[in-house]
């Protein structure tokens, strides 16, 4: 049984993936495409190995920015959602703003932040990631804190429980799966924001600026190698947040993602 | 010619694997035109499977099913039967009238003819005023009446019903039972009716087929001896109670075989 399900679930994507890469290679070689247009996977891999130290360095820069923004944004998002769950009016003020921000390419604020801080520092980029993560966490956790089962709240009230103990015994446990859903969305978004921020100028040290400058110099294959690095970084962030979820909520699946336009806001 | 003819029918799920299930073995049943037959039994006795075999939504492992003298498949292609489920299964994006038109649309009827038939059916189930409503604007009982109207839209000789009143409250349910009988009197359709409720089966049926699980089979067929037209007064009739007792007795035999869930004794 086990080997059969392995065959059913792993074989098709494996065949599809290998087939796709083979086709890519064949198309590039067969049609003799110019290297500045599309590089063959074999060459990208070769460049990835050759430039591994440089790519790793750029990955560390973008990854650090993303990680700091992710942590700070998550902490502030959680704190703010706790405040919002307590004060209804404040929540009514912030929620429409958060919804409107969902629809906006918020990352363009880097252009402004660069002027507000030293453009050569990493602070504007980190603040940008923080903002993006903050709103994702805020919206989802606030939802988890407020959308609790009315029966549970009634039960607690029948015990004459205080608002604080309702928060601790009902609202917070209910919000935990929402938090991890938010983190799984925010983790890739933080990586994306980190290196999109680099397109706005500043130090030429991260993945985003490397990709742009290599293309400007018609080093297409090297740029693809950096893209590969960026994908691996995004994947690593996602896998780590998923693992965290597994450790923190054993057996409990995550709540369905906030499917509003904000789910990938700001990337 | 009988409405439904079933002979030595068998159905096996997951044949050959560790979780093989003998859903039905050796079923023989013949249903006359205009006859009302209920299938009753605990969960897993195969009554829904039997209904789906008649509808040709499942293929039998052995034996045969004929509907109106044709193979079950041909009967499905010709839409010789109408079907209704426990969940009314109305499409929420269509109006009530449009829901009833669905089978006619698929048969390629033209618009005016479809509309006329849908209105005729709504008249039959006493919902003529609700043609342009959407299903979610109706109560559960009304939705189920629309589903019955949809099943009757092609003027089928046979109605297949899978616990159509199972999700309704008791009062609506009794009302719907009377409605169904009066509709059948007017259309002359035969009905195969799957239910969990003993009184429902007895009140509606000419015959009640009692089934048992592991493997699914017919243990007894109870003839209900209620004379004449059935009305609400029938529910106080001695023959009605006799029928209930007979079916309950037959089901007791089933209960000995350790699987009792799913029988409502009401």
């Amino acid at each position, binding site marked *: 049984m086990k080997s059969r399900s392995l065959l059913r679930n792993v074989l098709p994507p494996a065949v599809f993936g290998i087939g796709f890469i083979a086709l890519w290679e064949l198309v590039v070689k067969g049609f003799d495409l110019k290297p500045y*247009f599309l590089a063959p996977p074999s060459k990208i891999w070769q460049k990835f190995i050759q430039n591994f130290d440089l790519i790793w360095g750029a990955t560390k820069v973008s990854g650090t920015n993303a990680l700091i923004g992710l942590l700070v944004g998550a902490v502030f998002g959680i704190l703010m959602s706790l405040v919002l769950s307590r004060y209804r009016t404040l929540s009514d003020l912030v929620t429409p703003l958060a919804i409107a921000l969902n*629809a906006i390419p918020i990352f363009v604020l880097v252009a402004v932040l660069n002027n507000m801080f030293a453009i050569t520092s990493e602070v504007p980029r980190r603040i940008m990631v923080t903002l993006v993560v903050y709103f994702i966490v805020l919206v989802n956790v606030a939802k988890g804190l407020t959308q609790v089962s009315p029966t549970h709240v009634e039960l607690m009230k029948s015990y004459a429980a205080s608002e604080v103990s309702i928060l601790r015994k009902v609202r917070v446990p209910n919000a935990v799966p929402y938090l991890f859903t938010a983190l799984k969305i925010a983790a890739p978004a933080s990586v994306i924001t980190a290196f999109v921020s680099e397109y706005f100028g500043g130090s030429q040290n991260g993945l985003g600026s490397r990709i742009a400058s290599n293309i400007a110099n018609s080093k297409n294959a090297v740029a693809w190698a950096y*893209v590969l690095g960026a994908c691996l970084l995004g994947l690593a962030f996602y896998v780590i947040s998923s693992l965290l979820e597994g450790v923190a909520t054993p057996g409990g699946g995550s709540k369905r993602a906030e499917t509003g336009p904000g789910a990938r806001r700001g990337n | 010619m009988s409405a439904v003819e079933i002979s030595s029918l068998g159905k096996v799920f997951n044949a050959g694997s560790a979780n093989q299930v003998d859903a039905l073995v050796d079923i023989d049943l013949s249903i006359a035109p205009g006859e009302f037959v209920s299938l009753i039994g605990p969960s897993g006795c195969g009554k829904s499977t039997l209904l789906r075999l008649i509808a040709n939504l499942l293929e039998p492992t052995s034996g045969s099913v004929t509907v109106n003298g044709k193979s079950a498949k041909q009967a499905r292609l010709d839409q010789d039967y109408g079907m209704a489920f426990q969940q009314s299964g109305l499409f929420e994006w269509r109006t009530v009238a449009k829901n009833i038109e669905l089978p006619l649309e698929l048969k390629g009827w033209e618009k005016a003819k479809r509309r006329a038939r849908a209105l005729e059916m709504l008249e039959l189930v006493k919902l003529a005023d609700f043609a342009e409503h959407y299903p979610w604007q109706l109560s559960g009982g009304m939705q189920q009446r629309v589903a019955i109207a949809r099943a009757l839209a092609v003027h089928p000789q046979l109605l297949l019903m899978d616990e159509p009143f199972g999700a309704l409250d008791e009062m609506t349910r009794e009302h719907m039972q009377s409605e169904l009988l009066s509709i059948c009197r007017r259309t002359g359709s035969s009905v195969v009716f799957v239910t969990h409720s003993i009184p429902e089966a007895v009140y509606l049926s000419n015959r009640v087929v009692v089934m048992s699980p592991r493997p699914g089979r017919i243990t007894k067929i109870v003839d209900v001896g209620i004379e004449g037209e059935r009305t609400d007064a029938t529910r106080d009739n001695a023959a009605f109670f006799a029928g209930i007792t007979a079916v309950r007795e037959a089901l007791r035999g089933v209960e000995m075989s350790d699987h009792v869930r799913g029988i409502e004794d009401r």
Partner: protein
Amino acid sequence: MSNAPSTRNHQVMLRRVRRMVLFVVSIVLVAAVWEIYKAVGPEAGGKIFGWKLLPRANDNAMPHVWEMLSRYTRPELRGSDRRIWSVVLAGAWFSFRLALVGFALGTTLGLGLAVLMSRFKIAERGILPYLVVSQTVPLIALAPLVVSWGGKLHVFGWEWPRWLSAAVLGGFLAFFPVAVGTLRGLQSAASASVELMDSYAASWTQTLFKLRFPAAVPFIVPSLKLAASSSVIGVVVAEISTGLKGGIGRLIIEYAREATSDPAKVFTAVFGAALLGLAMSGFVTIADLYMMRNRPKEATA
């Protein structure tokens, strides 16, 4: 149940008005916080726990809110007769059209792929894992690559224009949420409804158009919202990363460079980008309202 629709509509209207008012209030509050910080914050920025985390409060970094607004009425450049509001509006309109093209491309492809995957189980098993992974990797990294095709690529003698690259990138980002959302929707049809269609001997295409697509609408709607904001993001990033002329992204980059001499200018373009995003989501919201007009109200939540 429908005897009081007018009072219900009335309540819905009231809620909307209240939301609008609160939205305006919250924007005014943000502006107030900006001005307060500007009044009390350190001119050259400041440190918290040794980190340079306090922004500079001088006029170059943080112009007054009224400066930003009044900048719209002045010419783009000294001596130019084009007022900046018309330049920003033109840029946002240019990017809006690119985002629309991308949205249309991505949505069409996403719907097509979803139908393919729902038709052939093997296609779903082969492709779906990659769609899920693609949501976690920064596809936007491809922006400069795709845009670099502009002017270099010739398809059957037809030169690939640079603007199309930006639209394709928007479509590229829009495509994934639509494909995944539609697939989930197509598979959401109740099994009783599928059985009903089978009992009518309906063909696969009939079942697709009469049952699966309508049943998928509540799933497609949120995915379209995601696709709309994704296509805007794709287009703006493409414009910024490659300096594509004509759109709002290029304006932001250009105006940001003039911050020392004309600090309010960049804000006019930033708000233009906000307008672009809101316009796109407004467009999709209208489409949503139309598609969901006859649905039970819970389903739209």
